[in-house]
């Protein structure tokens, strides 16, 4: 029996080798390698790349640009995730009702998800255009007046948030809808018999029972939002004047300048920020229990 088990165990490892090889060579090693680079003064066109210990970290952590990009990234994540949770919950509640057009509505909600981020960002960029964009056309018609959407720090920030919320709400909707569908119907029926109105039912049945899914979905989306890059790269390029530069984009800019040491340092700091949320997600998501 022991021989069979040993044989099986070896067989299991051999089935996992390709998967682990890809993950280790193309993800784990690069992260460790990036950490290694962050300990060096590594600038392209500079022949030597001396070991400098944590000097790059000291440099980055005392730099205003870095803390500003942390501020941009964290506020982006907070506002964006809060809005898409509210919107996603509303959408999920609508899709959970037995409507005749439910199938069509569910298909419509999937559309923003299916459009590549870059393509949706370029469409929003066009709609935000000062002189010929759709938004300013409507705003002028309504008498509100044109807004320089991508031209001022605050409006550019919210322009990015809006485009991101549009793109990511479907995913949130689908996760929350799955959570809503798992709530047994008889709880609601019992509450109706007891005379509870729909707002009371929402507050005292839906929200508490949805909470586990809600928490997992919010953490998952927060992790994603903290890594934001694509949408900002297209919409503002981090501007105006660096006002919407996220941490990932800041690191990218250093790589572009050829400064791999500082770029890697910012990348590793991003990694550390996201890692704490990842650990939270893995703990709260009860993934281990699901495997037993």
């Amino acid at each position, binding site marked *: 029996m022991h021989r069979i088990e040993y044989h099986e165990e070896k067989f299991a490892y051999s089935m996992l080798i390709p998967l682990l090889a890809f993950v280790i060579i193309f993800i784990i090693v690069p992260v460790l390698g990036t950490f290694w680079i962050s300990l060096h003064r590594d600038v392209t066109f500079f022949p030597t790349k001396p070991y400098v210990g944590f000097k790059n970290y000291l440099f980055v952590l005392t730099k205003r640009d870095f803390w500003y990009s942390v501020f941009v990234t964290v506020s982006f994540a907070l506002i964006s995730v809060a809005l898409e949770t509210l919107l996603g919950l509303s959408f999920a509640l609508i899709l959970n009702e037995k409507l005749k057009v439910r199938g069509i509505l569910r298909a419509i909600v999937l559309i923003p*998800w299916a459009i590549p981020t870059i393509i949706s960002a370029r469409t929003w960029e066009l709609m935000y255009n000062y002189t010929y964009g759709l938004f300013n056309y409507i705003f002028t018609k309504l008498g509100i007046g044109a807004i320089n959407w991508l031209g001022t720090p605050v409006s550019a920030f919210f322009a990015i948030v809006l485009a991101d919320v549009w793109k990511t709400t479907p995913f949130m909707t689908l996760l929350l809808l*799955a959570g809503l569908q798992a709530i047994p119907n008889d709880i609601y029926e019992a509450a109706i018999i007891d005379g509870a109105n729909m707002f009371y039912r929402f507050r005292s049945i839906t929200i508490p029972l949805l909470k586990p899914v809600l928490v997992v979905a919010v953490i998952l989306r927060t992790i994603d939002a903290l890594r934001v890059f694509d949408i900002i790269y297209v919409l503002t390029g981090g501007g105006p004047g660096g006002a919407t530069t996220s941490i990932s984009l800041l690191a990218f800019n250093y790589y572009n300048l050829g400064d791999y040491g500082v770029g890697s340092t910012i990348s590793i700091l991003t990694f550390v920020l996201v890692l704490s949320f990842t650990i939270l997600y893995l703990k709260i998501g009860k993934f281990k229990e699901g495997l037993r």
Partner: protein
Amino acid sequence: MNEETLKKILLIIGATLMTVICLFPFTWMIVISFTRDATFLGSTSIKFETTIQNYITVLTEPTLHFLSYLKNSIVIATLVTLITVSISALGAYAISRIKFRGRLTIPIFVLGVSMFPQISLIGYLFKFIEKLGWINTYKALFFPYVAWTLPLALWILLSYFLQLPKDLDEAALIDGASRVQTLYKVIIPLSAPALFSTALLVFIAAFNEFMFALLFTTDYRARTVPVGIALFQGVHGEVPWGNIMAASVISTIPLVILALVFQRYIISGLTAGALKGE
């Protein structure tokens, strides 16, 4: 007003708003792609002229290379899908069926890895790919994409394989089938829906990826659609919105059709990948 009516009114308003919100940017993309002058809203006398010239330009103008981008994207995403689904099926089978040390740790570790910010790999990965001489080749994107999509694929398949009764493959094993035969003759045919939804999600993820493609490709020989569209330059230098939107529509329509036709598979895949413990 009684509760039923109130609820009905709220639902109608909500559903209408939802439809408008979800559809208007996509609709605008289509409108502009068929417009002769994409800046028509800015001119004093608004003239809206329809045309298919933008499509013709994008598909025939050789200096735009749009068809090359599309070909690169489709070839890379297809190869990635085939390999990722095969590799993750093997792994998911081992984890769901065989007892071994690390059975619980490996999938959790892989899931954690998928949350790493892409930027945290770039510093080293760029140098590595450069050293291999892979810059501007399919290989430069294929290998990182497989690694990057494996965790999602593994978890979707894992959640499905764990639901399949173990008696099925135990019966096959007792009948003398090997583990490999059991996987191919029993598990794989039964898992067609899960394999399909995994394949769809992997394909879409690979098709949409931007950061690696931006850094590891330099021109039309390997550049993919998202990078092509992000860096789109007109023949004459100005921002050619009509062309960009036509290229966007051509690249988006197949994805939207896939999503609509196979919405059940996509929804089950997305939720299985994210909400394991629930």
